[in-house]
């Protein structure tokens, strides 16, 4: 349970200390790629919560969505349309959906269970 969170912290730390900062020209591509990977990560958490988790889907989604969104921005620059917004919109919506599902699952699993327990306990008395 705590392993992913620890890994996240470790990732932050490693990124803070070791990663080279990319040249500013790459900033927009990396930004949308991060949006896509955030969606994938949250999707993975959701999968765990809903017991539909598939490691292959998570990993492929993580890398392919990340690269594809960066390519989307590049294509947008080539054809002169801000496809940037498409990526932001799609993954923004999906991030919120994933978060909403995670929240519901969390509430169902822990809060309502406790309520049921307390209710059943009171019934017993």
């Amino acid at each position, binding site marked *: 349970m705590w392993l*992913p969170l620890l890994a*996240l912290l470790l990732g932050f*730390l490693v990124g803070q200390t070791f990663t080279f900062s990319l040249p500013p020209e790459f900033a927009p591509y990396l930004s949308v790629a991060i949006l896509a990977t955030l969606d994938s990560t949250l999707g993975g958490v959701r999968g765990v919560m809903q017991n539909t988790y598939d490691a292959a889907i998570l990993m492929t989604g993580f890398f392919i969505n990340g690269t594809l969104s960066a390519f989307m921005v590049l294509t947008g620059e080539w054809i002169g349309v801000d496809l940037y917004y498409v990526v932001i919109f799609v993954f923004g919506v999906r991030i919120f959906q994933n978060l909403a599902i995670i929240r519901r699952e969390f509430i169902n699993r822990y809060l309502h269970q406790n309520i049921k327990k307390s209710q059943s306990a009171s019934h017993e008395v």
Partner: protein
Amino acid sequence: MKLENWHLSITLVCLLFGLLFTSNLKTQLQEVNPTAARNKTLVDFIKTQENKNQELETEITASRKKIEEYHATKSGENGLAPLKKNIEELTFAAGLTKVTGPGIVITLDDQEKARTSKEPEMYLIHFSSILYIVNDLRAAGAEAISVNNDRVVSTTDIRCAGNIILVNTHRLAPPYRIQAIGDPDKLEAVAQSGEYGFLELGNFPVTLEKKDEILIPAYKGSYTFNYAVPLKEGEK
């Protein structure tokens, strides 16, 4: 704690996400200012060039000293004395020696208003002012002129590059100090009637001083002729 199959992949994904996120943060926090970066390289370039100039100038002075030494050792020989005298006269005429004599000192400075005004160029000293004053002084028979300790000789350029005035390709900073050796009264009269007078009328903080003794440094650069070839007498 039991290691379930989802632990590992999600851990990896989280690690990668954290890594990407911080590196992006770093990239975004970088100073995104291409003009500043370009300016910095240009400034560095100018600085190295100026250092190079200075080195070359010291080299020139060293070479000149060496030449002088040669002249000194050879001066005892017959027939060379008049030549040596000739050379001395020529170096003096070319502005390659320090000179002293009576003359005037003019100082020019930008107006205070230049800092606050919306049109600062109205209140700044431009290269043209310095050029005109030097011309006025020449017309008044000045025999040696220097601007901020840079000798004005026949090849001297007085120009501007951006917001900086260059004399002999040396950058000047205000206040500008123009020294001229010649008849002080005449120099003063001509300067007053020319560009200097205009600047004075325009409320620029300028001063003009007559002095009995002014020291003007030697020209530190070199004279190079890449295209001009002297014609011997009798040709053409």
